[in-house]
């Protein structure tokens, strides 16, 4: 996967869990490469076989573009989750933030007639919900896990409720989709051309990952965020308000998830609110993605692309009857992958003070 060194930015990565986590990550990385290699060999030896066909599906420009497209909401939520958890607030409500922004982005676009305005509405609403979560956790010392679940359940009820109010059903009307930005020449490259012929949120995603990495590791705010999660008392002693840093980090997680949710909705130009809604667990997959990526935005991108890649392959397999396995079973692949990865990674070294309320001594 991606380089692990950058993740060791946290000063006191205690060796034990770290090596454990690393070995789990290595296993997954090796397994991924191994499976791809085997399929590749099969494709060369017997191009007509199932394995050969599968390799053809995996290594294709359209699968890569689908992977990128499917990665967008997960990566945004994961990067947001990194900020929140690094600052000491475990935000398990990312799913809810994605749901609320997916709906409000469509609603905003429908009312204003502009996708860009809709995007902004999505970001604002997710940030507002994250703000509520922040107040509840930081001001009223709620249990973060339970409050996060509440945020998810509120959004899970509220978005279809509002859709029903406005559109008379759990699904909204269609507002149109974002087009693609194509970089001339580069888009023609076989396979990798997918990186240069994508919807705007895909480029924004790479920007967000780079920006988040830089912010966390190279700026004063990044240091504060990490200190608020690792050693809030030291940060307090240094004269920085821990609560304010945590508020900023949680609001940032809302804004980033908002972008993810809006991008997800604009993919198909509609919000669908039946059952688990169109977000369908992406917020929870994002949590596993950043745990697996060891709180490193680049690592989170890598692990997301693994999950999203499996999802993309799964979607392609449904349309092309290459493997004789029923759709429902194939659809479980990404979820099972998440469980397997989590079991392999085991305990991650979460920030020392994550989940704890911090009370400044001055009060």
């Amino acid at each position, binding site marked *: 996967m991606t380089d692990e060194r950058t993740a060791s930015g946290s000063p006191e990565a*205690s060796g*034990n*869990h770290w090596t454990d986590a690393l070995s*789990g990550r290595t296993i997954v990385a090796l397994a991924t490469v191994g499976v791809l290699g085997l399929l590749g060999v099969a494709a060369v030896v017997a191009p007509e076989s199932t394995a050969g066909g599968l390799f053809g599906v995996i290594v294709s420009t359209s699968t890569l573009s689908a992977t990128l497209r499917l990665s967008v909401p997960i990566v945004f939520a994961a990067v947001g989750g990194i900020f929140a958890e690094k600052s000491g607030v*475990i935000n*398990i409500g990312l799913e809810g933030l994605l749901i609320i922004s997916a709906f409000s982005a469509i609603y905003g676009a429908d009312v204003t007639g502009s996708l860009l305005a809709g995007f902004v509405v999505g970001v604002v609403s997710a940030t507002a919900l994250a703000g509520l979560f922040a107040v*509840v956790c930081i001001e*009223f*010392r*709620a*249990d973060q*896990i*339970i*409050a996060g*679940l*509440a945020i*998810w*359940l*509120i959004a*899970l*009820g*509220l978005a*279809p*409720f*509002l859709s*029903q*109010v*406005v559109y008379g059903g759990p699904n909204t009307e269609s507002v149109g989709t974002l087009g693609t930005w194509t970089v001339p020449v580069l888009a023609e490259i076989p396979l990798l051309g997918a990186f240069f012929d994508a919807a705007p949120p895909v480029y924004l995603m790479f920007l967000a990952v780079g920006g988040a990495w830089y912010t966390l590791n190279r700026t004063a705010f990044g240091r504060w965020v990490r200190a608020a999660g690792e050693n*809030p*008392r030291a940060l307090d002693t240094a004269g920085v308000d821990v609560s304010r840093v945590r508020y900023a980090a949680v609001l940032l997680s809302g804004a980033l998830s908002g972008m993810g949710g809006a991008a997800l909705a604009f993919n198909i130009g509609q919000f669908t609110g039946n*059952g*688990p809604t169109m977000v*369908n*667990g992406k917020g*929870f997959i994002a*949590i*596993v993605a950043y745990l697996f990526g060891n709180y490193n935005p680049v690592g989170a991108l890598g692990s997301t692309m693994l999950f999203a890649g499996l999802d993309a392959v799964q979607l392609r397999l449904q349309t092309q009857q290459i493997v004789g396995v*029923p*759709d*429902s*079973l194939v*659809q*479980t692949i990404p*979820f*099972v992958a*998440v*469980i397997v990865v*989590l*079991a*392999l*990674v*085991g*305990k991650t070294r*979460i920030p020392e*003070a994550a*989940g*704890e*309320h*911090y*009370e400044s001594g001055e009060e």
Partner: protein
Amino acid sequence: MSDDSEDRPGPADDGDDGPAPPADGGADDGTSPSGRLRAYALTMAKTSAGERALIALSALVLSMLVGTVIIVVGGVIATCRTPVLTLADLTLCYDPIAVYDRLFFGALGDPLSGGWSPLNPQFAVTLRETTILVFTGLSVALAFRAGIFNIGTQGQMVVGALSTALGVLWIAPALSGVGGTLVLVPVGIAIGALGGGFYGAIPGALKAYADANEVITTIMLNFVATLMVRYLVTDHFQDPTSQAVQTASLPEYAQFPAVLFDPRLDFSLLALGFAVAVVGGVYYLLEYTTFGFDLRTAGLQPAAAEYGGVDSPRTVLASLTLSGALGGVAGAVYVLMVLGKFQTGVPSYGFDGITVSILAGNNPIGAVFAALLFGVLKSGSTVVDFATDVPPQLVGVLRGLIILFVAMPEFFRLIGRRIQPEDTEPARATGASTDD
């Protein structure tokens, strides 16, 4: 993978010297989500029953107030032919009072109007929902007491429901009549418990032996369960005469017999009685058995439990298995009492179970009252849907709000302090321990 870091021995007296809630930043256990959960469970355990009931009630009232705002805002956004209120350009389509009237009185079958009978159809629906919610609430509560957050009750219920339906369909042809009922209903419940227990054992083993966070694994397993049962039913057990994804119907004698209530109402007093009996059983298990003691100790003081000889991984596995089995029983009752077959798209009883448990402070007996409240809300939402234009998803929003408010007892203490300012000092210092 599991190493010594799993239950890093925190100070055994953690939390004893200052029964302070999460306020105390020094709590060593708080370094993991489940550690936080333990701290929370500790807070809940030290909160008096009276205070807990007060918090639950206040949370309900506050959620309804916020719900009112949502109804009004929704009513302004919505367009309708006959608004209940018109102010200049604004039209209000929904009447919040009518909504809550339908939600509560509607669910009970209008007890204030004349000729009310406890056997009325809507009240039967309320009790039916209550019965299933008791089981899902117990499922979540049992895990919670062990310091484990089982979000997977929904999936365990789905697996249990399908297991029950398939098992009973397989055995039923060999039996008939009252004898058939006497055998099939208990056997069906047992099969459901096995199925759900197995499905709960998966995240249990993953947590116990691979240290995988159960919040995530159980949520993922919910998705897997939904997809797996859809595959199993469509590809192997589909009722050929039906458009819906469902199994064949169980024979009448394989279902819970209705007592007093009209059989068409899909409610059986026997099932409710069974639910109450299980509540007693779980209460006894938790409070009066060695296993229950181990479980509670593991939830509150994992380090002390380990020191006292509790096999922590085994307790984790056993708790989640048992929790899953209760979820499976919920599924079995859903099949044997309500549906009479298995059909995909099981309602979200599992998620409601989280609310029921949290509202009840994870107390099995409290879960009965919380389940009744939620039974009213769920049953009432169908009345609301029928009688008003307000979308029934409102209850989903209320569910989330209630959890949110219950999660922040500090908020209510703050209000309490505002009302009684003389209590400020002790309340500040000792938090939850003031039970007056």
